[in-house]
């Protein structure tokens, strides 16, 4: 095929960020899938609640939401350095990326430790009753996502330190951002539904 008209694209860049990049979309859809999982679990939570006249069931005592609130504040705040790291990755500022990611990761790690402490305070387990089953499943699922986000960030940091800090690595940092925000957003929702809802209602 020796074509007449040719559209030359050799001048186009080889990297793009945000909705222009396939990787960003991949990350968004993965988060959409995981969000559907969480949404259905929350639906199950309310469905099981219909079976109870008292919710949480008598005997199940939720500790005061202090630890979870600190967790909430830390996670919400951690989105700021994570967002700034994305911007820095777009501008190829390697040291800034490393610093910001490390800061965000430390906040996330503290939130993880607080979460484990909170779980250990619960006086019921997943096999105590359906209430225990759904609360533990929701919290453990979220905690697993939180530690995944932390480890993913750690790996991104190590790769950035080790170098080279090329286009692939910069895109990697950038696609870490939406996942982190997804973990944070679901904690806001679960905090309202499971932590606040069950303590005050």
């Amino acid at each position, binding site marked *: 095929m020796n074509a007449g008209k040719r559209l030359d*694209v050799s001048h*186009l*860049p080889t990297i793009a960020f945000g909705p222009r990049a*396939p990787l960003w979309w991949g990350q968004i859809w993965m988060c959409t899938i995981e969000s*559907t999982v969480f949404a259905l679990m929350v639906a199950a939570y309310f469905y099981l609640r219909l079976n109870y006249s008292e919710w949480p069931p008598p005997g199940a005592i939720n500790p005061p939401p202090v630890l979870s609130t600190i967790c909430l504040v830390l996670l919400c705040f951690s989105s700021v350095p994570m967002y700034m790291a994305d911007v820095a990755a777009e501008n190829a500022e390697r040291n800034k990326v490393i610093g910001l990611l490390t800061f965000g990761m430390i906040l996330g790690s503290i939130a993880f430790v607080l979460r484990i402490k909170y779980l250990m305070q619960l006086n019921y387990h997943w*096999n105590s009753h359906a209430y225990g089953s759904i609360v533990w499943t929701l919290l453990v699922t979220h905690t697993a996502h939180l530690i995944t986000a932390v480890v993913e960030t750690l790996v991104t940091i190590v790769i950035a330190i080790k170098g080279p800090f090329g286009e692939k690595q910069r895109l990697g940092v950038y696609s870490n951002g939406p996942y982190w925000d997804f973990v944070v957003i679901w904690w806001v929702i679960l905090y309202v539904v499971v932590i606040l809802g069950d303590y005050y209602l």
Partner: protein
Amino acid sequence: MSTVVDTDVGLEGQLQNTWQSDGGIIGWFSNTSHTTIGKRYIVTALVFFVLAGIEAALMRIQLSRPDNHFLNPDLYNQMFTMHGTTMMFLFAVPMMEGMGIYLVPLMVGTRNVAFPRLNAYGYFVYLFGGILLYIAFFSNMGPDAGWFSYPPLSGPQYSPGKRVDTWAQMITFTELSGLVVAVELIVTVFKQRAVGMTLNRIPLFVWAMLVTSFMIMFAMPGVIVDSLFLALDRLIATHFFNPAEGGDVLLYQHLFWFFGHPEVYIIFIPAMGMISSIVTAFTRRPVFGYLPLVLSIVATGFIGFGLWVHHMFATGLPQLGESFFTAASMMITIPSGVQIFCWIASLWRSRPEFKTPLMFVIGFFLLFVMGGLTGVMVASVPFDLQAHDTYFVVAHFHYVLIGGAVFPLFGAFYFWFPKLTGRMLSERMGRWNFWLFFIGFNLTFFPMHILGLKGMARRVYTYPAEMGWGDLNMLASIGTVIIAASLLIFAINVMVSLRSGAIAGDNPWNADGLEWGTSSPPPVYNFLYLPVVEGRSALWDRSADEPVVCGVRSDRREILVTTLMDAAPDHRFVLPGPSMWPLGLALATAIAFIYGMFSPWAGPLAFVAAGISLIGWFWPKKDEEHPEEPA
């Protein structure tokens, strides 16, 4: 500048060199080409189709006469569970996905899917899930609680042992694979369409795969959550479905059908796309009503999520809710009707060429309309309460699924076989294949309507002679023999044609899709030059000077990324090449899932193993660092 090659021959060589996979066993396992992986999906799904077909045949032997003892009740339970599970999870969905993986990148004019390694991972996970199910089946651990495994029957109390666990884990494997395919197809369609392929020029099959992928994304989490809850109930004594501790068995049904009903459309919508391609090619003119067809596909995607409760009418839900779901179930006939009328309008006065693919489409019209009509019947609550769990429902969903999806799929086999293999299937054997399938199908499944109305329940392993169901059952069993003969002819056709079929050439049907604009089978890089699209029928609307894209580097796996709406050139992007890590991660996943049937510690173990594999996957490698482009 090394990247610009003056002659087409030189370019061909360089592209071949860049895009080809490594040889040998390692090359086989590390392959990330979408055509290779698409073909693997198709072949694997066909193997499972044969296995599920054998199970169906064994059930038909058992039911052919009253008081038969060919299969014992326990084996019969496993048979219908394995048949349904295999057909739905290991044949229908992966088959449609395989067709999508193979065809979508060719149809949108790109060189590979957006995430090639993820694609390889998805295939291995699917394969391991299928193997697990069959190893379990042959070691007397086959699931036996039906393809939807309702608790309490499937719960720890009534299904001790590992049978249901096998089922629950296999589900997770195949759903995982389905989800990664959905994501990569959506992103491929969003970002890798040929320049000029605006939204209103996307081929209908690609629209169909896009809508299917979105449905997978929102439906499959339902069964993932459901099978997770079931596995937890069985393994660590949670109480999701245990009424004694505040759990609820109906929660299982809601979650299952929130997935299960869209699943029907996940199987059926790709078939809509296949029909549109076939009708266009054999009427030699653009399909009638492109816009209403696209809107119908999208509408079906949405309404498909509002029907799930019609599977649960017999559970005594509030009447208002039932009325809502009846209305929604009837509403879905509107987009289906629009589509059928559009295709009929396309065929009207068009002098269609009645080749085998089109014959299967015509067969689809008849069978699917029948299935649709019985669908409207069972959508009505009073009727459903009578027909629920009888052979009437079995007849209905086989008309919808075989008529609605398998017939178009066979049409698609005959239509795209030349593209996949470079050779034509025999038309004469194709005719035999079609007519025997059509006759055999009706003989098998039409009598089941009557058996259902006479009161024969699903899933009974035998029935006494006094019921008077013997003759119709015998008829159905004879039909099965005819279907088997037709499938045997298909298998022979494939074998013979692979070796000595007529050489197809690039475009044997003079069809309009971009996939016909490259050689058959396509080279590993798909297109020598990335195409530019100038109309809805890419090849028919192409202007005389055939504009193409140049300036995409051929010395590395570079593709052109275009904008979401207008498909204007945006940037160039390098896709990853062959890798063993997808296999590694799939093995880690498989071991963790299988261990998960026995111990809750599989969770943390899976986490660590997957983490290690993923880090290996993403760790930058020396040879992947390409020098920046010379100025």
